[in-house]
């Protein structure tokens, strides 16, 4: 089952940590966002193959899709 990982706040995408199709475990850091001078790691909440839907430098809104884990 696909698991969608969404942004919890308005932020800039600072760093993509994983590569497309990489196998990730529950708890792995996928992407690091930056908002209000704070780095916010986006963490996988399930295990599987990851597809990242944002690029470094993007601005994400609250609720935007960041990655899908299948």
């Amino acid at each position: 089952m696909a698991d969608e990982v969404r942004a919890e706040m308005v932020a800039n995408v600072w760093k993509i940590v994983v590569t497309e199709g990489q196998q990730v475990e529950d708890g792995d850091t996928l992407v690091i966002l930056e908002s209000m001078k704070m780095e916010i790691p986006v963490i996988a909440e399930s295990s599987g193959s990851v597809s990242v839907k944002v690029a470094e430098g993007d601005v994400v809104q609250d609720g935007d899709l960041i990655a899908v884990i299948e």
Partner: protein
Amino acid sequence: MFESVLVANRGEIARRVIRTVQRMGLKAIAVYSEVDADLPFVKEADEAILLGGAAPSESYLDIAKVIEAAEQSGAEAIHPGYGFLSENATFAKAVGDAGLVWIGPSPEAIVAMGDKVAARNLVGDAGVPIAPGTREPVADVEAAVIAAKEVGYPLMVKAAGGGGGIGMSIAHDEEQLRTAFATAQNSAQRFFANPSILLERYVESARHVEVQILGLADGRVVALGERDCSVQRRHQKVAEETPCPVLTPDLRARMITAAVRAGESVGYVGAGTVEFLLDPASLASGGEFYFLEMNARLQVEHPITELVTGVDLVEQQLLAAAGEPPSFDPGALTMTGHAIELRVYAEDPKRFFPSPGPITTWVEPAGPGIRVDAGYHEGNRVTQFYDPLLAKLCVHGADRAAALERAREAVAAFQIEGLKSNLPFFAELLGDPEFVSGVYDTGLVTRMRAPKA
């Protein structure tokens, strides 16, 4: 005296500086980024100049653009606020080179205090107590592991050029040190363009107490009491109070002497803050404290000092920069009552994660003993580009109990809607038995958020 001041900052501090500049009959010039055009500080200034894009590097951190704005507007002096370019010696020098008055300490004093390793050594040599730590920056992780054996665990790993809690972490053993070193070096390079790392013995359960100093135009350095800043999350302050509830008159006098000595060691001019760590375990035997760092600028929490002393610190900064005497008698300074500052942040009150967004409702508390320094009002949007400080809610009471009660009422009366703020956290804090007792340390917020057994 110069007749116009450009304020090279944004939000609440720009607004607060503009207020004093205008009260002194001077012209206040604001600079702003594209996303800040609707904020109160832009509207309230006598003139406002657009710098550029939202990213700080395109606006508030762009030295050439700020100097150009000063020349364009005919500003005669520049006030840097805190953060951004306030402790940037290159900027301070560029301001002077452009024939403008720099409202702050000399570029040399900024350099001396900006590098934490150099500052430690300098004030240590001047007789100020410092914690055991490295006298030279550690070059790499292996050097850090060797140095750690001498300094002793637990250790604080810090970016030498850092500030604001960024790039700081604690290591209890070698494994943690290796992780902490990598993290600190990464942040140091990224945020401060200076990869130097400093190791310092970490005092568990310390209090963070700082002294407000003021370097006068005649060369004297005076102190305006202390502030306790031990309520912190992620090594960043969220609430401060003055006086510090646990200082004895003797300990206060020793801290003030040390702070003045630190200021004198660099020929400090203007408002500055000397931060110390106080070991609560040592209080029974008189109190031990260590120099932490010196902030060569106006401090965020300066209003609580203003509330108990009645001195406008921004006015004193302007006077010192103009070579004029202060507007108060430093020999006859009196402290009245107790003051508390609560930093109202756009963040969720449980995990303290950022929460930018629109402000749909904004109603500030008002009344005797209440001061709100706000950067926003209703209808503004808080963006992700800058720090989360919305407003500083400051209260003043006859004693600590009265100040606490006033703070509770003010928090309850403050209405902010449209985004998450940490006001509910302050309601908790002001009812927390440890905070209310006055006997707390920098671990307080972590304990408040620890899972209940």
